[in-house]
């Protein structure tokens, strides 16, 4: 029975599957688990307060994860993301200080943001050029850039904070717009931009192709060097946006801010189903994975657990997901041997 209905359902199912993809299973499962467990443990978990905490804390890690995602998809890595964010934040701070400090007018701030994005992008251009032309390993190239930026930043700030910005900067980190945290809105905008970039543009398509097999992509006429340079440039620019948000949230810039996020961004990518060797991955599952990590951290906070313990629980979650993925692969369809 229902013979007439089945095909329509199948297409709908296929469409839904195409929209979310198989990578979505892990993050969604983790999401459900976290929400169920914490709402049982703590009645306040499903509240506005939790949502607010997540909404304000998520964007920093989230934007840095987006910056990490593109290089990971090409089979590379950008270890310089946190210091690129710091240097971009410093760019904004210095431009504001040089133009009136607390009294700096808004257009100056706008220009300062553009300059910060340019600085972030240019670190990416340099890394991209070196990786594309010398074929040096991205880990080494970005590690060198990370050390350079850290040294440069610490030298210029003498290891201290730079603070004191006009009052209109604060809302970018703390304000709300139509009831939603401003940093969350900026982050969601960036997530959508990355989603469109990866699913609908030529650059996105070529990013995946390069990640799977760069030589085969070159033989098919893909300008592999251009793609690599653009990928690292966009990664750097995204770091700058993260740097501006961090500046607004802390109301100060210090080289080393957010350093502990570096490896968590890599893990968030993998939790979101991104292939660690490149070529496969989607933005939306990574976004869900980030929400899970943040919910977990907020929930533990709510039940009174230590912040360091929260980090430890992140580690356990990630390991659990890897093991579950392996288990899911084992019970998948049996593969017959070749003749």
């Amino acid at each position, binding site marked *: 029975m229902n013979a007439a209905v089945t095909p329509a359902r199948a297409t709908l199912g296929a469409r839904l599957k195409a929209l979310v993809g198989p990578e979505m299973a892990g993050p969604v499962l983790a999401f459900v688990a976290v929400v169920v467990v914490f709402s049982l443990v703590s009645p306040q978990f499903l509240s506005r307060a939790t949502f607010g905490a997540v909404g304000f804390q998520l964007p920093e890690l989230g934007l840095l994860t987006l910056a990490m995602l593109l290089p990971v998809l090409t089979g590379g890595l950008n270890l310089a993301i946190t210091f690129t964010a710091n240097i971009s934040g410093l760019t904004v701070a210095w431009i504001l200080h040089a133009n009136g400090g607390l009294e700096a007018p808004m257009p100056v701030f706008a220009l300062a943001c553009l300059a910060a994005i340019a600085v972030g992008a240019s670190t990416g251009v340099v890394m991209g050029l070196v990786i594309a032309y010398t074929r040096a390993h991205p880990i080494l190239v970005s590690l060198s850039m990370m050390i350079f930026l850290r040294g440069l930043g610490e030298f210029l700030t003498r290891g201290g904070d730079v603070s004191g910005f006009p009052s209109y900067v604060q809302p970018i980190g703390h304000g709300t717009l139509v009831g939603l945290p401003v940093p969350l809105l900026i982050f969601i905008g960036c997530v959508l931009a990355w989603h*469109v970039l990866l699913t609908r543009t*030529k650059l996105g*398509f070529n990013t995946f192709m390069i990640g*799977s097999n760069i030589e085969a992509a070159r033989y098919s006429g893909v300008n592999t060097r251009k793609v690599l340079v653009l990928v690292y440039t966009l990664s750097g620019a995204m770091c700058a946006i993260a740097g501006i948000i961090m500046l607004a949230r802390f109301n100060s810039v210090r080289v080393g801010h957010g350093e502990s996020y570096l490896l968590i961004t890599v893990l968030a990518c993998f939790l979101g189903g991104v292939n660690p060797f490149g*070529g496969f991955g989607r933005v939306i599952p990574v976004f869900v994975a980030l929400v899970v990590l943040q919910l977990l951290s907020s929930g533990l906070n709510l039940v009174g657990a230590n912040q360091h313990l929260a980090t430890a629980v992140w580690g356990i979650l990630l390991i659990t997901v890897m093991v579950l993925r392996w288990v899911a692969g084992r019970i998948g369809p049996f593969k*017959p041997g*070749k*003749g």
Partner: protein
Amino acid sequence: MTEALDRGAAQRPLLSLRDINVTFGGVRALKNVSFEVLPGEVHCLAGENGSGKSTLIKVITGVYRPEPGAVIEYGGETYTHMSPVTAQAAGIQVIWQDLALFPEMSVAENIAFQTVVGRRPRLVDYGRMREAATAALKRLGVTLDVDRPLKDFPIAQRQIVAIARALVGEARIVFMDEPTASLTQSETDCLLDIVRTLSASGVAVVFVSHRLAEVLEISSRLTVLRDGALVGVYPTEGMTQSRITELMTGKMFDQTVRARPMEGRPVVLEVDRLTRAGLFEDISFTVRQGETLAITGLLGAGRTELALALFGMLRPTSGSIRLEGRPVRFSSNRDAIRAGIAYLSEDRLSLGLIQPQSIADNLVMASYDRLLTGGLLSERRKRDLVADWIRRLAVKIGRQEDAISTLSGGNQQRVAIAKWLATNPKLLILDSPTVGVDVGARAGIFDIVAKLAAEGLAIILITDEVPEAYFNADRVLHMANGRMANWFDPRATALADIEAAVYA
């Protein structure tokens, strides 16, 4: 009755299998197969991909366990199944296509590491390893510097190292899986000599190869499998390549020369004294609309390099290329693609297609620009384009999103051809389009080539199999040592004459 069969009747087999059945999740990979190898003989195991050759070898080496009822007799003992340990201890060795060697380790370590594994005291005796390695190489009549790391040696020598390793394991029977797939003609000859040496010293060799000429040259008997079932066991004496093809595929292929006169048609490509120092020299030819020009010659004759120069991936040092009368100079293959040249790589696995990615993505990769509206992809146009090419080239696929690696060699090659046709080329260069494609599927590829030529596409077909060139091209250019050696017209020359010239 031939001598080989008489001998077979007289001699007790070294290895004999009966009633072998293997099922994978409902698919019967082997159906009541039996197989026999005589001591010291060279036996060929032939069949298309998926016919059960690898499965049979894995049963013999203990990787797979056959269903109850199987009988395996080896060296006087009877087994219901083998295990990897008993198979190795009994002297059954396999040299897989990927060789399974350690590139960073020395030749001696690669050959003789098994001799030190599991012995006490648990120390590595390098002196003994070197001795064992040198002795094994000597049995093969080869000298190699055993202290150098394996990665310093080309593939042909690595193959010899893999064979020497089998000898150290006191092999009585050696299985070789496609051993000549990546060797040049002279390297192949050298390998065949080694196989003869092995056989003369009493080691049986089971040879798995797609190259039927070699099969006929080296082996005395032939076992043919098709769709997991035994077709038969035949003496190679009196066999022909076309008869083997028939047995493997169960189909008749009547080949006729497709060459037609091309004079007077507009010239698409004109190459004049094209030279790339050290790779090829003084190459001049034209290809006309609807013409198929074959370039043949041994591996290393400069054919692929010439193709890469036409495709903008290798800069010529002198000479000129004209496309439809206009001189062209490409700074990358993107220029060449834009100008209307397409190049199907000889290495489908690592350069031609991106194996883990989907059928659809592989197909649209070279023509992605055509799918964009205002810089954004139109999913519908992509799906329609892919569906259209899948239909036009009769590619057998499941879903467009499946990885290209799930397709057979022949279907993968059809997708690769579609990828280039989607760029709307004027000239299509096919570099060894039938490598790793089953005999049965090859005919299908050449039917497509013929159809494209009839529609007016200019085609350069590069192949080291002279019959392919002879039957499918309008003219045949023979290259040797980077130079033009001969021109042949298939309508006026016998296949044997061309083969004699090329393989001389």
